[in-house]
């Protein structure tokens, strides 16, 4: 059994919030599709951190399990997303989010 230290739970949460916000900014503001993807990964990691911190606080492994699944799903998502990106790039020579707007109403 390890003893408590001086790092409050709040610190971890705030850190997670900061990372998440940075990720949101990246998603909304960057022009390159790849960087947008990476920002999404950033957001996911921030959430993972939050989960693990809570899990430690309550002494329950549920948070760990959740993070486990998040990682698995993130992997799948990245695979498919990058495949789509590659397909789009092959057709139109650009990785710009701005240029892909076929869904325009």
């Amino acid at each position, binding site marked *: 059994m390890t003893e408590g230290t001086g790092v409050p739970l709040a610190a971890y949460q705030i850190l997670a919030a900061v990372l998440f916000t940075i990720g*949101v900014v990246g*998603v*909304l503001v960057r022009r390159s599709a790849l960087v*947008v993807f990476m920002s999404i990964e950033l957001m996911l990691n921030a959430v993972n951190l939050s989960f693990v911190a809570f899990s430690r606080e309550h002494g329950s492994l549920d948070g760990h399990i959740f993070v486990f699944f998040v990682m698995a799903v993130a992997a799948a998502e990245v695979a498919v997303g990058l495949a789509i990106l590659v397909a789009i790039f092959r057709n139109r020579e650009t990785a710009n*989010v*701005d240029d*892909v*707007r*076929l*869904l*325009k*109403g």
Partner: protein
Amino acid sequence: MSLSLLWLVPVLPLFGAIVNGLGAGRIPRRVVSAIGTGTVGLAFVIAVGCFLRLAQLPAEERIFLQTLYDWIDSGDFSVPIRLALDPLSGVMMLVVTGVGFLIHVYSTGYMGHEKAYGRYFAYLNLFTFSMLMLVLADNFLLLFFGWEAVGLCSFLLIGYWYQRPSAAKAGLKAFVTNRVGDWGFMIGIFLVFVTFGTLDFGRVFAEAPGRLAIGSGLATAIALFLFIGAIGKSAQLPLHVWLPDAMEGPTPVSALIHAATMVTAGVYMVARCHILYTLAPAALGVVAAIGAATVLFAATVALTQKDIKRVLAYSTVSQLGYMFLALGVGAYTAGIFHLMTHAFFKALLFLGSGSVIHALSGEQDMDRMGGLKKHLPRTHLTMLIGTLAIAGVFPLAGFFSKDEILWHAWENGGPLLWGVGLTGAFLTAFYMFRLYFMTFHGQERLTHEAKHHLHESPNSMTIPLLLLAVLSVIGGWINIPLVRGGQILGAWLEPVFADIAHVTGGAAHHAAGEVTGSHATPEITLMVISLVVALAGIYLAHRFYVVDPGAPKRIADRVHGLYTLLRDKYRVDELYDAILLGPIVRGSVRLWQGFDVAVIDRTVNGVGRAVEKAAGELRLAQTGYVQMYAMVITLGTVIVLGVLALR
């Protein structure tokens, strides 16, 4: 031969109509003819059988009811499909099936070259069925069914050559005009129902004297509204306008429907409801007045018509007026008698004219006829007999029936009505012999085409003519006045009209045409007068159209205004157009443009356009930019988080 076969009489033609109707175009012509005429012929045989059977019953018991189906049965109100055979409907039934059969046979010859042969016979059979249902009906609703159905068949047959605009219009005119009459008829039926709670003839007529006071407003209303229906159906003033136009239909149709049977439905109806009319003397007076007015109106117009069928059409209107005149003065038997004889000689005249038209390859204008006596011997002979009959020459049928009416008009209606009838008789003799002379005598004014193809008609057409001619000769002998035992028809119909005596207290013998000594001298005098008048008419026609053919033109020029008024049938149609049809059509156009197009269409289209515009605006939200979508999601998250955070 049992009376229970009665139902076959209407059903056989119905069967023929269904078979010919469904198989039109696929069944060979011979089969169509066989079914078309055979069903009616067989119906006639059965009708005769039933009639004789009925006659074997004692006079007071001569009424046979046969229920076919419980049509409406709701609480106290029930309307079954029930046929009622009594002396009156028996006579009608024989006329319809007998004359109808002859006309069906004639049609096989006349319509032999038509493409839509099957359709014709289907309609004609359907009409026969409808008319029989009308005549054999036991209640007002069933009668009304037959009433409407014959109107429908009339429309279908008038517009048989519907590709011709004039024919289509004529059919429509007939139907619409009838509808106006039917409106009144329906109100009459409603009043009957409200007053009696039932539509059954037996019960209504039995309870009528008890429930309706003589001359009461209710009785008069019922009688008048029912009569409005008769005005429409039987082409009396002012709803006569459809009958001349109905000549657009094939000539056998004109013979059957617009001379012998359908137009007589009104007469039959009034005769059937005689008790209601006896209880409403004012209404009877109206009946007589309209009948008399129609007699003169139509007869004067007939003087100027050039189309052979038009003359006969106006003649029919005029003769129907005689029938209503008879009913209006309480001479119900006389009215039915004239109905019967008129069916014989008018059908004969129409079929004869059809034979002429057929021989002249479709020519109907009498100005282009003449001298046909030697070319069409059989047609000529039969037409002569028919013309003599309608002119009322002794001893042919028309003489007896018309005279009966004139006698009763004098007796019960007064000298004015008699005078009108007499004038009508003179005019009838004149214009009918004008027709005869212009067609068969005098110079030949045929077109080259017509002369080239001139030929007597085939047997299928001339044999019915001969049979009808025979009937026109002997038909009047079933009701000879002043001879003891001579009023066979009168005695036969007496049980039907006997209840009048209970209401009026002993005046029934007028209806039945009994003979007493005090009547003899005046009656014979009047008979002689009418005979003289008829002969005068014939003589005058002979002068004008054989001896001195230029005379009519000279007289017409002298009284040009009067002549054109008569030729244009008193411009009644134009009057109706101006005061009724014109405003209605203009009003409809205005409604269409002002409301349907401007308001409704604009609203509906406007809704569509509004949706389109809204969609156009909303579409702008779909920019296609993924990051914009992400931003909106983020905004949503912000809001949701805010709500949750502030809890």
